[in-house]
């Protein structure tokens, strides 16, 4: 009797929650946690799969030392940072503008249509975005050059020139991710209570003041999440760029993940590639914490 009092009858057994959670947890272990730990372990090994006879001995931090003294790694990281700083401001400004337009009352049907359309770039696979990009920026028959022709500038070799290739991958990334920003901001804008917006409308007729003082505070959580997601995403952006430019011409679009892929699967030095990947993971975490500390405010 005493025992039945201590353990309330919850209608399910002790292990039931475990079995419900097990599929999700094992999937997560398989695709997320195990590879990460594998990479972490590999990063401390000499691990070149073309030379299996050398074995995979632990070599301490020497992979990390090579990475940190590798000029190409830093150049790639620099290119990635440049890419990030190019696309993100554009995505935020464009996304916010679209969100503000969609947030305005009226035109219900057209706006729900626009919202659905926004999902299309998000649902497109990176590799397909890359393929589309190759078609758009083709020197001979791409629409980008056709458009330039109409305004009198012709024959620009987008993917063959360093600045052109960088611009092309940036434009494709902006195309793919601006809608994501727009949807994020739209969600943030809809968090602003109607009466608070109305109270502000009685005090100022400036849309800019409204955005800055009333709506922006509600957008900060969205903005933080967005910055974190985009930093992580740009650091691992691979497929689209690989399909469009393979990092070239030269090293113009050699983003960090392209470089890591080259080290891992061209040179087959997986130990070094793992060390690079782990460093990127640490970088992502540091950037995320920074954004959270600077921008994020508790919800009101």
């Amino acid at each position, binding site marked *: 009797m005493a025992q039945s009092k201590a353990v309330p009858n919850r209608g399910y057994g002790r292990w039931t929650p475990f079995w419900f959670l097990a599929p999700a947890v094992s999937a997560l272990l398989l695709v997320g946690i195990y590879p990460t730990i594998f990479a972490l372990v590999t990063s401390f090994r000499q691990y070149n799969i073309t030379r299996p006879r050398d074995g995979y001995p632990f070599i301490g931090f020497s992979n990390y030392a090579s990475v940190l003294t590798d000029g190409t790694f830093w150049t790639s990281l620099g290119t990635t940072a440049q890419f990030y700083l190019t696309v993100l401001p554009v995505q935020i400004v464009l996304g916010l503008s679209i969100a503000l337009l969609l947030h305005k009352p009226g035109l219900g049907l057209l706006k729900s249509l626009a919202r659905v359309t926004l999902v299309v770039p998000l649902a497109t696979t990176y590799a397909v975005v890359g393929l589309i990009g190759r078609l758009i920026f083709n020197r001979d028959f791409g629409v980008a050059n056709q458009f330039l022709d109409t305004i009198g500038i012709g024959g620009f070799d987008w993917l063959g020139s360093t600045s052109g290739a960088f611009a092309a991958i940036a434009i494709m990334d902006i195309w793919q991710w601006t809608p994501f920003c727009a949807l994020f901001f739209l969600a943030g804008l809809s968090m602003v209570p109607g009466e608070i917006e*109305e*109270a502000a*409308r*009685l*005090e*100022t*007729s400036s849309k800019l003041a409204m955005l800055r003082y009333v709506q922006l*505070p509600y957008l900060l959580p969205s903005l933080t999440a967005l910055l974190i997601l985009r930093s992580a995403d740009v650091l691992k952006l691979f497929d689209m760029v690989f399909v469009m430019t393979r990092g070239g011409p030269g090293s113009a679009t050699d983003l960090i993940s392209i470089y890591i892929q080259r080290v891992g699967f061209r040179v087959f030095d997986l130990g070094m590639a793992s060390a690079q990947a782990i460093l990127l993971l640490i970088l992502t975490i540091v950037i995320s914490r920074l954004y959270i500390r600077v921008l994020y405010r508790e919800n*009101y």
Partner: protein
Amino acid sequence: MSFLKLENIKKKFGDATVIKGVSLSAEKGEFVVFVGPSGCGKSTLLRMIAGLEDVSEGRLDIDGRDVTYEEPAKREVSMVFQSYALYPHMTVFENMAFGLRMAKIPEAEIKQRVGEAARILQIDVLLDRKPRALSGGQRQRVAIGRSIVRHPKIFLFDEPLSNLDAELRAQMRVEIARLHRNLGATMVYVTHDQIEAMTLADRIVVLRAGLVEQIGSPTELYDRPANIFVAGFIGSPKMNFVSATVLGIEGGAIRIGHPSFVGGSLSASPRIGGPLPKAGDKIIVGLRPEHLTLRSDRPVLTLTLDLMENLGGSTQVYARSGADSVTLLTPGRPAMQPGDSFGAGIDPDHIYLFNEDGAAL
């Protein structure tokens, strides 16, 4: 000249017309209360004065200026919302100062104005707090303070007290009345609470289904309601209505027959005037619960007791007279049992009469 003037204001949402042509005007310094059941359009009307809702038809003047299509911020009105609508990320001071900062008022004057308003509302110690650290009553004071500092031409209140508990509501009601007296400002106040309407208003506008039923001072509405709707809406508990038949006209008075009347009939004079009913017409007799007296020397009504509610100092008595139910409010605690028959008296001057269509006689 009237300070606030609405001329045949209409509001349509698609095919539905929610405000069907409202005209009214208010003098400077007047306290006008819009009252009515939910869905009557009182809040929509207020929001149209604020500019938060477009006017579909008609004209709106504030202080002699046509503001029908003016932006809200340029109408020089301020509004206190039901949910207070304070900016959650700003301190109390910043909340109150926001409108002034937007209007580019010098910082020194802002400090002085906010300080003054905070003193009036006794929130000077809260100026550095964020709204979430305030109680409901304090938030409402801040919201009112935010209105005061802007020195608006008109203060608008949209059911400002309905989120407060009963005690605080009574207290804030008194404070709003005091504020109105001290500032001498024009105020338009929306409520569904007829007690707030009665106690605060210089003039009450009773609305129903997008139309004005009656405009008048609280006393006017109580003493001379234009129709059954107003009579039933103003006064608490609600006025009793007994359907009866006109027996005849005797001098200025109407002789009315109903089986519950002692002697089968009673005589009452119309309050409003207008055409008198003919013998045989249906007539509705209105009796306010607080005017009916138990154990009267000259009982008018014979009633059967249904239920009694003891309110402590007084008792609310629910009784029946034939098909109609009648409520009485009586001091003390009468010793009666359900099913008991008793007589109730009323001063003939306190009898209200309405014709079949509900218009007051």
